[in-house]
């Protein structure tokens, strides 16, 4: 779920840029190290990023206007770690804005934080935890994908709530309101995405 261009007022759009910046800067360093150690990393990263982009521009069946699949970046964080993934997500989000008019420039920081940082980190954590606990891999992946999606939606709702607190009840009430209204689309979407990614994993293992 992208926050549209122009929707976040000052100072919130700047704050999310600042909060995302450390991850991206760490990502730049990680990227430089990786490329200098192994030049072949660059083409692989590029293709992984392109795959994430294409995956995220696929429309899931029966859900119109759906085009955010943070698990694509979740996959990235399993493969390359969360910092480099934030760099990939940054590029992907800019291309989504320029190619598809999804998201925007002023909301880039906020969208990056929810989709390129929070989502992947949660997916990664669940994946690692599931593996340690010895839970069935397909089940783990279902939860990793579904929760990455849910956390993205929760963070987005929070971002909106912080920017637009309620008259009565403040940020908390506003958060509940945003959360409730986006739940209509985002909860089914999270379940579908969990199913799809789990199936994808099952098929890839078969190949």
């Amino acid at each position, binding site marked *: 779920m992208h926050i549209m261009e122009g929707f976040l007022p000052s100072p919130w759009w700047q704050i999310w840029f600042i909060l995302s910046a450390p991850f991206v800067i760490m990502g730049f360093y990680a990227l430089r190290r990786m490329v200098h150690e192994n030049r072949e990393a660059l083409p692989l990263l590029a293709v992984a990023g392109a795959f994430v982009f294409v995956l995220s521009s696929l429309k899931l069946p029966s859900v119109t206007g759906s085009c955010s699949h943070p698990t694509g970046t979740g996959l990235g964080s399993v493969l390359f770690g969360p910092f480099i993934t934030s760099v990939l997500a940054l590029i992907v989000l800019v291309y989504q804005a320029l190619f598809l008019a999804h998201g925007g420039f002023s909301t880039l920081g906020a969208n990056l934080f929810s989709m390129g940082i929070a989502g992947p980190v949660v997916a990664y954590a669940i994946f690692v935890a599931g593996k340690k606990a010895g839970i069935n891999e397909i089940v783990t992946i279902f939860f990793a994908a579904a929760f990455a999606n849910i956390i993205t939606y929760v963070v987005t709702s929070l971002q909106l709530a912080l920017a637009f607190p309620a008259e009565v009840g403040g940020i908390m009430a506003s958060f509940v309101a945003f959360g409730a209204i986006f739940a209509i689309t985002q909860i089914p979407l999270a379940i579908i995405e969990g199913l799809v990614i789990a199936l994808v994993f099952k*098929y*890839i293992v*078969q*190949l």
Partner: protein
Amino acid sequence: MPVPAIEFKDLNFAYTGHPDSLKAVSFSLKKGSRTALVGPNGAGKTTLLLMCNGTLRPTSGEVLVGGEPIKYASRQLREVRRKVGMVFQNSDSQLFAPTLYQDVAFGPLNLGWGEDEIRQAVSDALFAVGLTGYERRPPHHLSGGEKKRAAIAGVLAMKPEILIFDEPTSSLDPAGAAEIMDLLEEINQQGVTILLSTHDVELAYSWADDVVLIEGGEILTHAKPCSVFCDADLMRRAHLTQPAVLSLHHHLACRGIMKDRDPPAGLLEMAQRIEEMAATTATHHPPAPIYLIDCASGLDGTLRLLMETVSSLRIGVMGTTAKRQLAEAGIVADFTYGVIDASILHALRQETVVIVTSGGMIDRVRKRIAEFCEESRIPLSLRPVGQNDTAEEC
């Protein structure tokens, strides 16, 4: 007049924001025919093919499948897509399931068939393309030719009435291409109408009943292959080259050496014409016999026997069943495509040939050879082996 399999009525099409890619296209395909859509890259071949099953919707005009105009509501499209199967140029994009079985079952499953019906359809389709036993393989581990056949199986499983092929032989080597063309011939023999696009004129010339020439989104002509390809100006307009045999005929006719009658239908006919006009007459040994083995009920040693008795026997094989049996017996055929004409050419050179085939193709062999004997007045001897050992002299 019988209802055509597909009919295009004054079709126009443009991709959004681009100039027209199809302009006033009108033609129709007879049921059971095999037609080649020939034109250079960018002529609109693929666009036109994508109209046949409603993947693209014309800007104006209509497409009729079996006499019914395509309706672009999803329920009706589903039926059209079952009737009209399409095989892409790049088989990779058509094979997306983790195993061959799942891939071929994809269509029938989406049509909501029963489990047994699906299993039967998949096994029939894999048998038809000669991939029985490959069910559990992941498609991306197949060779180029096998991938193409797997893609065809995926479409065949839906029991289509019309099959559309986009450049079926591109990126296949001659042997692989010949196998695919032979397979298409077999499918066509079973009553399926076939439309294929190609820029390979030699292929279209030797395979098609009819040729539709397209260039710049317009249909230039719809006629018999030899009349299309011998028109040098038309070919130039379509940025294509003439088949070598026709080019040679054209030159000799212009030079006044060869009588300028109908262009030859193939290499065999060209060779006969050159013989006719040659100063030195051919050595008049009688042609060697052509043996014919019907392998419907297995090979049961007849072929081995023949191979032992006849020295330097040439083996031609037609059809998937025959090919599989030969492969199982560990026998390598000499020709697998254009078998009948090749056999006649060999017989004329006193090289004994055996054709192994089955079913309806037996009759085709008989007919074609009788036809040649009549036209050329050269007596060929066709000898069925096995059941009844009476030779047919013509």
